[in-house]
């Protein structure tokens, strides 16, 4: 069994975001990078398959130099191979450009029985790349999976939908996007961290995949500008310590008469 995992390096969720000099992207100075939180569930699920079924686990990331580190962070938890498709990162925010690059890399290193991605990359907040890669590889996918069972030649997936859950059966090869709840991602062990330093990372150029990064980047989605949200005016704060009843009454009145929302 061979398992591919798509992982992406994103700004720590607690980072302060500033607009960079280009006016179209963030200022990266001082940003701490982390594995995108949903990708952690994808990584964990793949490692569990390695442990239970001897699956070979191959990580893929597309991005600039620093993104090699995300592969090391994955290796610290487990896994066999890592492919870094080195780019300028110019395709950032253009999900279809990224999906084409990753699909080509998966094809080159494939075939895979299962491919895992995160349901959403934190930061880009798109939730697109997984489904797009599956379409490009002409395989089925299932999104936002919170529980998985493996069968001969296929999987059963529980996925979150509004107001409930769906239980879906898929044939392999297929792609799964991981939602919180799928598993409990492990912490890297000290031994794992040491071993990760020696794991080989294969670096591929976008051109090696027969693609032109410059032509792809921004062709199907372009960030024109980036701005911080307008500051919010200070709210009305009521003192509910002395007179909770009175504060509650005033709040209800304000919501009805001023905000007109109830």
């Amino acid at each position, binding site marked *: 069994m061979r398992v591919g995992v798509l992982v992406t390096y994103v700004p720590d*969720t*607690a980072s302060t*975001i500033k*607009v960079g000099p280009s006016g179209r992207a*963030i200022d990266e100075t001082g940003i701490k990078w982390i594995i995108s*939180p949903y990708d952690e569930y994808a990584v964990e699920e793949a490692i569990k398959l390695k442990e239970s079924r001897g699956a070979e686990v191959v990580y893929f990331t597309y991005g600039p130099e620093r993104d090699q580190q995300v592969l090391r962070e994955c290796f610290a938890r487990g896994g066999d191979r890592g492919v870094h498709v080195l780019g300028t990162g110019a395709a950032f*925010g253009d*999900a*279809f450009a990224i999906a084409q690059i990753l699909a080509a890399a998966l094809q080159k290193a494939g075939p895979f029985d299962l491919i895992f991605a995160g349901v959403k990359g*934190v930061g880009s*907040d*798109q*939730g*697109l790349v997984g*489904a797009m890669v*599956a*379409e*490009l590889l002409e395989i*089925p*996918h299932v999104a*936002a999976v*919170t529980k998985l069972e493996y069968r001969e030649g296929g999987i059963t997936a529980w996925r*979150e*939908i*509004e*107001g*409930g*859950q*769906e*239980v*879906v*059966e*898929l*044939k392999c090869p*297929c792609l799964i996007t991981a939602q*919180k709840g799928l598993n409990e991602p492990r912490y890297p062990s000290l031994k794992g961290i040491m071993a990760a330093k020696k794991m080989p990372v294969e670096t591929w150029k976008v051109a090696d995949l027969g693609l032109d990064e410059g032509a792809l980047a921004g*062709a*199907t*989605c*372009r*960030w*024109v*500008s980036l*701005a*911080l*949200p307008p500051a*919010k005016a200070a*709210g*009305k*704060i*009521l*003192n*509910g310590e002395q007179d909770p009843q009175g*504060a*509650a009454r005033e*709040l209800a009145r304000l*919501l009805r008469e001023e*905000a007109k*929302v*109830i």
Partner: protein
Amino acid sequence: MAGILVFVEQREGQIRKASLEALSEGRRLFQSKGLPVAAVLVGANVQALAASLGEWGAEQVFVADQPDLALYSPEAYAQAVAAAVTQAEPEAVFLAATALGRDLSGRLAAKLRVGCLPDVTALQWEGSTLQAVRPVYSGKALATVHGGQSRPVVVSLRPNVFAADKQPVNPQVVALPTVAVGGGYRVREVVAAQAGELDVAEAEIIVSGGRGLRAPENFSLIRQLAEALGAAVGASRAVVDAGWIDHAHQVGQTGKVVSPTLYVACGISGAIQHLAGMSSSKVIVAINKDPEAPIFKVADYGVVGDLFQVLPALTEEIKKLKS
């Protein structure tokens, strides 16, 4: 220039409100340029719904009506919508950014080999290019984006942000050719959440509880207020991780992104990852005993006080107002 095609989502014969919002916004944008407005419906026994979309201004309604399209499957639904795209040749395809819409948008865009602008909160014309605003970095920044050179551009619109309004026309209904549904994906079962529970992603009002509730049984205070308001129940990650309530209720970066008309945060500190999920709500109320809690920075109205005293009082006041 071509018109707009809006994918209209239905579940068990019920059209989703968020889809009507997307249809209304599509109509506003394209009618202003004198361009045609079309919709596409996919499902089983949905023919009867097609005519009703005329109420919302759809001049043409494409219908893929097959028993094996009753439940969502990404490939089959993408094929059906792509067939409508072939016929309508639109400038843009809109979908509601629901769980289904967001998933379908990626599959569809890749099939059409075009770009996708996900979960947008504003749309405008920039000359003859459609530009969108979408929250990125969990709402800490807003990106203005467009679909490059590719056409049609696929856009998913965040629910509860755009107004749904009627504008009746007499629609032409067009049947789409049969879609070949592959055998690689099969929905075995749909498990509904607890009966009568509103989903946070679609609710107009949400009352959320956090660690300030101190114990799982105190969620009853949240449920009582929610019931009085006709609201859905939300939660912070802290209480979801503690097992007090199911993850389906979690609001935030690793939960649901919501934009209700009213969001009431009770005993929630307002960590950046929580704000990520709810800061685009229209009116935010915070109830917290700590006046320094960051949630007050985004609140339109706040009560500094003990939720164990304020919540029951507020529930009573709301009941009084509503009776």
